[in-house]
């Protein structure tokens, strides 16, 4: 096993898939010479050159729309939207065009398109560069939504996403890029729609994704010292959702805590809570808890933004309250 950062894992996935298939290309703001503002495409322009890696104008509508047009004509674009906050600029193309083309055309159009983006609170990027907007995208049938938490999952899921013949919103997290983890050797894939139990436990199920997986694992270690054995389920993909793994775990532990960084109201946690009630109500020994961001725009100053989003202490506290 090699150890690699999340950022390096993303680059390696792109490099391998671009080498494998000449129809895979990159486009987006600053993805070329600069290697991306988070350096998540660093070195690819040097390897593949300007015929495979395209710096675009700051035109999110054109980036997504052109990627769709290219996909319809047989290419496999990986389009980058620099911040998930900017998907709002391109939302007609994402929601009304990309997501619906296959269905609207009665199955004629095939849209193998990956929109890579990143979200979440970083180090004070404030209200327009820190959001977790996955619930917008899960609310649109036709899109798949992928949110890996580890370097290994990031690489395997990005490779799978590029080979998938459906449009995918692939949401990285700005604080995960520097995190490191083991990476399997060789050409491996991680299936879309399969959750991963990052830690086993019998007392409570913590259901989470993206960076909150790391916070939940930290909370689980705190709880372990107190003799509470929490199971941490990393969903990895929100759509398709691995409901079987969620329900199996909740039936085992009888308690469910859902953790996400996005603000609580209308968050994807509400969907999961509703599904657990529909499928496993009789197995619950305590009310389902949602630990989520406060319903406010993300503030600028560190004491403020830290107060808004979940952290290991808040998660551990919520779990203690259930037992």
């Amino acid at each position: 096993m090699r150890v690699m950062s999340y950022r390096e894992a993303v680059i390696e996935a792109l490099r391998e898939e671009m080498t494998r298939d000449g129809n895979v290309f990159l486009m987006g703001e600053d993805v070329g010479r600069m290697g991306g503002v988070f350096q998540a495409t660093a070195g690819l322009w040097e390897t593949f050159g300007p015929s495979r890696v395209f710096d675009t104008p700051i035109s999110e509508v054109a980036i997504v729309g052109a990627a769709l047009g290219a996909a319809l004509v047989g290419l496999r674009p990986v389009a980058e939207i620099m911040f998930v906050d900017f998907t709002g600029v391109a939302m007609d193309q994402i929601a009304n065009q990309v997501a619906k083309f296959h269905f609207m055309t009665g199955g004629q159009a095939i849209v193998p398109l990956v929109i890579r983006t990143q979200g979440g609170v970083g180090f004070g990027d404030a209200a327009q560069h820190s959001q977790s907007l996955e619930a917008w995208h899960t609310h649109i049938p036709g899109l798949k939504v992928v949110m890996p938490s580890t370097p290994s999952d990031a690489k395997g899921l990005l490779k799978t996403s590029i080979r998938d013949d459906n449009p995918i919103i692939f949401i990285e997290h700005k604080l995960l890029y520097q995190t490191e983890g083991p990476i399997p050797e060789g050409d491996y894939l991680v299936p879309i729609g399969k959750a991963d139990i990052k830690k086993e436990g019998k007392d409570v199920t913590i259901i989470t994704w993206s960076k909150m997986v790391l916070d939940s694992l930290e909370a689980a270690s705190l709880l372990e010292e107190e003799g509470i054995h929490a199971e941490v389920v990393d969903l990895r993909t929100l759509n398709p959702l691995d409901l079987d793994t969620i329900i199996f775990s909740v039936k085992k532990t009888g308690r469910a805590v859902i953790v996400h960084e996005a603000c609580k109201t209308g968050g994807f946690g509400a969907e999961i809570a509703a599904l657990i009630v529909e499928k496993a109500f009789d197995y619950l020994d305590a009310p389902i808890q949602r630990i989520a961001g406060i319903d406010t725009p993300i503030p600028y100053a560190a004491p403020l933004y830290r107060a808004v989003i979940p952290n290991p202490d808040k998660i551990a506290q919520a779990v203690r309250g259930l037992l």
Partner: protein
Amino acid sequence: MSVTDYLSWGGSMQVRKQEKIDLYRLMVRIRAFEEQSFISFNQGLTYGVLHLYIGEEAIAAGCMYDLRKEDYITSTHRGHGHLIAKGADMGRMFAELLGKETGYCRGRGGSMHIADMTIGILGANGIVGAGVPISVGAAFALRYKGLDHVVLCFFGDATINTGAFHEAVNLASTWKLPVVFVCENNLYGISVSIKNACALRSLADRSAGYAIPGVCVDGNDVLAVRKACIEATARARKGEGPTLLECQTYRWGGHFTADDGKYRPDEEVRHWKEERDPIGNLARDMLGSGEIDQQEIDVIHREVKEEVEKAFRYAQESNPADVDGMLRGVYYESPTRTRNSKGEDLP
């Protein structure tokens, strides 16, 4: 006439009699399809509303007469004419309007979303302006693959004021992509006159902002449209980039089938219908020059009527859209991919 012939003659296009007759027939076919669509709407056989192309037939016919099957188009909510001119099957189009399983989109898309991926129709579109970035991406893909095909992007006057138009045309001009932007200026965005939506006298002038040629033609003169489009597509094929082609025209009816269009002056409507009918005017010119006689015109109309009746019958006799199948149509379940689109084995 091929594009090469035309260019070698220095641009003075001699139009053969048969080409004029072909163009005439194509416009008559589009109008007959739309008339039958309107009847079907009034009989309650279709769902939603339809955006009819009657009055604008010369643009679709003139622009697409010389296209290759491998060229692409993007279309709009008012797309029936574009589809027919690109070679779509009327029977499957009617079937889509009637919500049948044999329709182009199997009843999932309807009038505003008809596509035929086998002949380069990348979809009509229900969002004003949305087709422009898609057309640019298709043009990008053609160049990426090293092909000399082109994309024709159709849109109305209202699109010219959308952000999608600006972002996409800017990208196409910067990257010199093989796309022709065809603006069908029918003078109204639903009820609002273009004069109250845009300060430009000619929408083609917007091309200056993108450093591309802007051409304005009489969109009801099929030969003028054709000539302008041949020039623009030739430029695109040679790698010289996009052109903005404004075709001034008029829709005879309202914005959609439930709109009577009464916000327009009667005299204006009369002028366009009686004096600037693209079909009537071409017939008059050809009769005047002796290139066709009334009997030949009558034959064309009779044949087209039979074609439309047959196509409509096919749609009526088809099965309704399948509810069970619909639920499997949101995502594409791909077979295991072992080859890329060039036919090479993947590792």
